[in-house]
């Protein structure tokens, strides 16, 4: 059956099994491979995207559950890699292997959208994504830096 979505601002109409997780729809049907598969059980967060502005693990979200929703993936976080978080990530060289970072950035973007000045405890609670390279120190610093930028502070 046909499912309608809005992905990164564009209307999309898909013929796909509505049980198919959104992750695989994005990667296979829409060629948006920035969103990653890491566990398939919603544990690692590499597949995090925004569904109507809320960070969600797309590996456990069936396409049916995303019908008519506005989806934002890492490719749509900014037009040219200049979201405050992306700039902070680049300034601090946050990524190592980089595989988890799309999900990290999407989770962090959702946090900053609702909390302009997250504390370390807020970050601890909001960022439950896993990074095996251990870039957590810089992820935390990157979120603080981006938050400061968005508040208009000079970093």
């Amino acid at each position, binding site marked *: 059956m046909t499912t309608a979505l809005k992905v990164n601002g564009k209307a999309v109409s898909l013929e796909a099994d509505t049980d198919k997780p959104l992750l695989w729809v994005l990667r296979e049907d829409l060629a948006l491979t920035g969103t990653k598969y890491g566990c398939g059980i919603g544990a690692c967060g590499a597949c995090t995207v925004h569904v109507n502005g809320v960070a969600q693990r797309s590996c456990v979200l069936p396409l049916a559950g995303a019908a008519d929703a506005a989806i934002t993936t890492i490719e749509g976080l900014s037009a040219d890699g200049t979201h405050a978080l992306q700039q902070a990530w680049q300034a601090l060289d946050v990524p190592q292997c980089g595989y988890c970072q799309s999900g990290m950035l999407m989770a962090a973007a959702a946090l900053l959208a609702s909390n302009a000045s997250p504390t370390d405890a807020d970050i601890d609670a909001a960022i439950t994504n896993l990074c095996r390279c*251990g870039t957590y120190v810089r992820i935390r610093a990157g979120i603080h830096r981006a938050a400061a930028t968005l508040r208009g502070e000079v970093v």
Partner: protein
Amino acid sequence: MDGTQGVTRRGVLKTLLAGSGVVMFGIGLPTREAAASAGSEVTSWVLIHPDNRVVIRIPQTELGQGVTTALAQVLAEELDLAWGEFDTEYYDAQTNLQRNNVYVHTSTLASWAVDKLFEPMRVAGAQVKHMLCATAAQDWGVDIASLSIAQREVRHAASTRAAGFGALAARAAELPIPAADALTLKEATHWQLIGKSMPRVDTRAKTTGAAIFGIDVALPGMKYAAVRQSPTFGGRLKGFDASGVLKRAGVREVVAIRGGPSGYNVPPTLWDVIDWQMDDAVAVVADSWWQAQQALNELPIEWEPGPQATADSAGIDQRLGAALDTAGQLTREEGDIERAFAAAERRVEAEYRYPFMEHAPLEPMNCTALVTAGGVEAWAPTQYADEALRIAAYAAGVALKDAKFHLTLSGGGFGRRLSNDFVSQAVQVAKALPGTPIKLISSREECMRRGYYAPVARARLRAAIGPDGLPTAWHSKVAYGRAPVQPYGMSRFPWAVPNVRCEYATVDSPPPFGWMRGVAHAQSLWMNTAFLGEIAAATGKTSLAMQRLLLDEAHVTTDRPDHDDAVARIRRHRDLLERVVARAGAETLAAPGHGRGFAVTDMSYVPGYYASCVAMAVDVAIGEDGDIRVLAVHAVADVGLAVNPDIVTAQIQGGIGFGLSNALNAQITLKDGQVEQANFNDYPLLTLAEMPTVDVELLPASGRPTGIGEDAVPVVMAALVDAVRAAGAAGIRSLPLRSRKSA
């Protein structure tokens, strides 16, 4: 030296292109052929395009450790390139094979990338510089010494003449490559890039979703494969009933995969021998990976479980214990421990256990492969592309010359991708569907249950204590599961003890062996350090006080054959230990339930092997529920020359996260022949909330660069265990700490 000296590089390139047979264009990936056809390969290391674009070839896998940036930095330095004046691409394994290992060191392991490639890549940069300048010197009739390079131009200051790299490259490529000893490399005082924290070349793509990992490779008409290996190690495939799943939407084929070689340096002659490297498997091919995996979950498969059908962790532990009860291979002996034990005031004994651990890189194992009448072409994130090429050719049943392998970005590795099981599997599936590109992805569950785990280990230590409270004898015996000989972990401790014996044994255990980041140092340093802490406690000292007493060169016995090496190591370890004590600010933490622990080691494998050295202080708090919170880590590192200090710092920060994750949580167990863990719900990784603050000091640059990819892992694990002891939880005898058994 370039193995193609005497033959023109462009000639070789043309031959390669003609012979490969499976060149593909227009697939949306930067292929070597497409790149090479537009530029001049001045040497195997550097490609220059007519528009002056310079491409530096990287003969190591980017796993996140920053090799692409650091190695490019080294070559760019000698070629007088400014940052941003070059691109990078991976070396080509087939080229390396045909040119007699021109890339010198291509397996990505043992923290060797910069260690082994620093000089070759400096020389490579200087060679290209010389060849470009020699071309311009000929054109202008001037002395090559009067030329310089800036902004990708060769310039002659006296006449203000300048020629772009692009205009010179094709003719430069025809010149003989100068020998390394005919070149003068830059003095360190003139370095513009080496030693500076240049920004990583791959960060931007990794923040926009543009970075293409192996799992992201896309080919026209590609189908997806999900794979399941025998659930028991050494099991054989008896059969499957595909009739049901072939009716499912999107499912195309079910393919049997034969077990065989897949691992590090396995000679490709063992195909019909079950050698534990990779077992029989079944793959389902479908239009979508999700469809394939769903179908695989439903597929009735019959396995012959094999000789390890009843293996379990308790039985393996018993076998390790039995090995400890018999004499092992002697790996270190100094003095006379028996006499020291006979004369001892008292003795201390303890046993330590280390479980199987899975590397768990976040990108699951995967490979994309295409088999045609012309040969095989494969794409994968692997830590050993040369081996992947051999495995691909072997699995496809084609001559090595008819195989092409494309190395991709890798979503972590940590040693797991030294085995190329996924390449063999994907190529076997592709062979069953000739002409159809197959992307094979292992589910997380498959990765977890069929890993190449760091081997299980059990060690028995005993010490004789003299009247002054210092150990007079140290006797360790370690038994590993299936593993090559790796005694250094237990035996290379730097401490001055007059009588030492170290013994080593391995027992058969079902899973195949894997090296994991930190290797046997990560398995053993915490054991040795914890035992030293037990000796200290038995003699009324702090662990730190005992470390200091044994890091005293005055105690090194003079008749040791490696006396000078031992003294040098003691001085260096002691220096770093004192530095980290000073940096942390105090020897102990006063708050109840809090503890500060210390550890220091180099990653030396044998006497005379010089490696980086790292010391750490780890602060923990143990809650009323007994859970361990890691609060802060201070680290001081001597890596010789840090080519890129910020990347070195990142490796230490990340290594701390990796080591803490393993020490706190990691454990693979077997029951009824099968791995009990399946995913991150029962094999938890460290979370952001659990990550301590990290403070890193690098000693000023000196000498040559030594590796840093692994060093933080053993040190943080050992300092953590020491800190937990300092916080009051005595008698740590096994990892992971969160399922610890106290003595």
